[in-house]
């Protein structure tokens, strides 16, 4: 065990301060220290993406980051993307198009997709498949995930157009 250090991170808009060993993996900080259990642990070697969160505007696999590296950062998890009163269009679309089954990959999947659509608001199917390739799903075969993201993109673009 090494000495605990003081860390401060912002998660879903809320500042969190705590003492932890530097080797604590960010995914455990979120899940066990802060009780933010939306991001999950699937592979632990940065292949599956179940732990995906957004850190300072980047999609990051939280199983492959030490809490020490995250000190001072702004983190968004699925819990910060939308809740019962303000569902994100991606959350709506995944429900509408059966983009999930067991739900284990879903928080990471949707979190990654928010970033994908931010960078590319009009993705083709191929771009979605490539842009989501860091997230593994064992249940859906991806077809309805792709469909859900396409639908959410259309919905978000229509809303944006209507607002302009």
């Amino acid at each position: 065990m090494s000495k605990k250090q003081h860390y401060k991170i912002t998660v879903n808009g809320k500042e969190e301060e705590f003492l932890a060993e530097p080797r604590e993996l960010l995914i455990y900080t979120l899940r066990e220290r802060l009780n933010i259990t939306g991001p999950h642990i699937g592979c632990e070697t940065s292949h599956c993406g179940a732990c995906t969160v957004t850190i300072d505007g980047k999609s990051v696999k939280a199983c492959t980051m030490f809490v020490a590296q995250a000190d001072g950062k702004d983190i968004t998890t699925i819990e910060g993307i939308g809740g019962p009163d303000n569902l994100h269009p991606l959350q709506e679309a995944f429900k509408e198009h059966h983009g999930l089954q067991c739900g284990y990959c879903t928080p990471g999947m949707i979190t990654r997709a928010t970033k994908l659509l931010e960078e590319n608001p009009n993705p083709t199917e191929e771009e979605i498949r490539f842009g989501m390739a860091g997230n593994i799903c064992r249940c859906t075969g991806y077809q309805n995930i792709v469909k859900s993201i396409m639908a959410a993109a259309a919905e978000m673009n229509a809303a944006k157009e209507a607002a302009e």
Partner: protein
Amino acid sequence: MKDEVDSREDRVAKLKGMGCSRKRVEDARFTQGKGNYVDDIKLDGMIFGDFVRSPYAHARIKSIDTSAALEVPGVLAVLTAKELEPLGLHWMPTLAGDKQMVLADGKVLFQGQEVAFVVAEDRYAAADGIEAVEVDYEELPVLVDPFEAMKSDVVLREDLVAEDGSLPDGAHGPRKHHNHIFTWEAGDKETTDQVIGSAEVLAEETMYYHRTHPCPLETCGCVASMDKVNGKLTLWGTFQAPHAIRTVVSLISGIEEHNIRVISPDIGGGFGNKVGAYPGYVCSVVASIVTGKPVKWIEDRMDNLMTTAFARDYWMKGRISATKEGKITGLHCHVTADHGGFDACADPTKFPAGFMNICTGSYDIPTAFLEVDGVYTNKAPGGVSYRCSFRVTEAVYFIERMIEVLAIKLNMDAAELRRINFIKKEQFPYKAALGWEYDSGDYHTAWDKALQAMDYEGLRAEQAQRVDDFNAGKTRKLMGIGLSFFTEIVGAGPVKNCDILGLGMFDSCEIRIHPTGSAIARLGTISQGQGHATTFAQILATEIGLPADSITIEEGDTDTAPYGLGTYGSRSTPVAGAATAMAGRKIRAKAQMIAAYLLEVHDDDVEFDVDRFVVKGAPERFKTMKEIAFAAYNQAIPGIEPGLEAVSYYDPPNMTYPFGAYVCVMDIDVDTGVPDIRRFYALDDCGTRINPMVIEGQIHGGLTEALAVALGQEIAYDDMGNVKTGTLMDFFLPTAWEVPNYETDHTVTPSPHHPIGAKGVGESPHVGGVPCFSNAVQDAFRAFGNTHTNMPHDHWRIWKTANELGLHG
């Protein structure tokens, strides 16, 4: 009431009953990160356990020194076999009638085997403690090949050899060798040998169905909490069969079953991985009893791939005989089954090779014989049904490959060969040569529909042209057309021949209708992503006339749910779905009496109509189910007890036999071995369709798992018994980038014996998909002389096939 003026059509739509693509009720939680999986559970004072695992595949343990580990800050206890022995828990029974070490008792039999259990205040201390445990191993010769194991002098399981060197019978009869587990036979050996011996045409092939793993995205784990004050044990875990786990825990721990509560929370995919009972569960329970604290154990991905529940690993030798015209006359199959160090296969007791005896497939084969030899090796135990009913993927792969091999021998089109051998519609119920009675089917219709949808003739013409172009040097890509027609056997099963550890494989549903016309139903099954909360409510909506949206489905808590055998082998719909319908009908029967009383007519004078009982011939006189529900609780009705509840335990009279026709078109780069799936068409017949959206989702997912298994996913060992594919770098789980879009289709042939005619669907695409992908690869090389190559068809193995056929110049 508006309700009363709605058209019948509107009333049906409002129920969201069977046949509609109802959106899933589970999804609100999951899309917002509010699922509740076992690793999300956090209890006051909870501590963590994790394993010291063997780096060797076969070794004697000379000593274990835990003293340094106990000095590691945060480490509370270290359990070894020595600590478990006084409790009689150092070994545990397996589902297959064998026993398995909970913690290494003197030796280890596979790499990754559990040697010691370190209990600590947090995961970090546990990990540090593991590093500090010193184990002195003496390496022993390693057997990773079952054929070698059957010849070797090396004894893997000394505990199964008598002191005089003789071999006591195993759970399934006599054993031929100290590394042999069982021989299991089905069919008529003599006639089959005779028919095959005098065949006009005989095709033979040996194929290896490689070892793989279900690898759900969530690994296995549990939280055990022993409350010493009231003597109750609560065990949360990734259990596909929570009730069976409760019984097993009771049997091995001696804690009475009423003092054990097993809860399966949300499960992040199972696919067979979470059927078995693992040492982690036992050690967590013991650790909780020892420390008095809740203990969490969650395996990591390497633990998962290396130790809990492999699938397949069947060496299958087939002989198939036919007339010159292609009518199959006989089938012989011998399997050498590699079960690893302990026989922990999850099969019904009387079926040590599962339902491998469905291997005559969809064909009218008059005589057949199957023999399976189970063998111990230095590999992990398991042998679960990975997204299939017991060993059905192996059976279907075997017959669908044998058909292709026979077609080559006959120089015949493989689609036509299937057509002339299909069991005909009028032959159902059909008694197969290996014993099963197929309940229903219409194979020719499905096959014709599939071939037409894909323009099969056109594809074959294109393929022939491609071969010409290849030979002329105009292309380096070959085209494969993969065919498969599968018949599954699911819904285990009738108690007369199906049990696990003596527990009959019925399932159950209990319904309570609330006074205001909503309801809760509890089942003995447990969803792992199949959407039970959505679809079982649909069955009930149609059966009892209350909207699906007003029905809560609850599973997985043994204190509240009725006893059932759980969810695997596509049994939920065939068994628990039937129980649900039957319980619903009990509700309806009582509702009918209440309605008749309220309408002041005789019971027989009212009839059920969507959401109400109406007086026959006077549809304006009715009582809705909502009204009846209220009456059940607030009116004294002579001769009828208050309340509206029902329970049904359903013992299915037969299995169900879903079937389907799949076609895959694949282009293969001969020079690199890279396959490209151009099209995949899947026609499924699962009988009555409860929710088409959910069915389609199951098909997509199962096909993707089939793609993975056929094209690269394996648990590979080196000669020393080291696992070579222990992380997701090497264990192939396809991403969105490697997966095609699928075209789905269906026919509907309801099961005649199931209350709603449903057959189960979750596993069909995997069962039918694996041979389809494999056949596509093999078919691409048929014109160049290929008969059979083993899976997985990863790049190098495809390249090897091309190379051996001389296609690299």
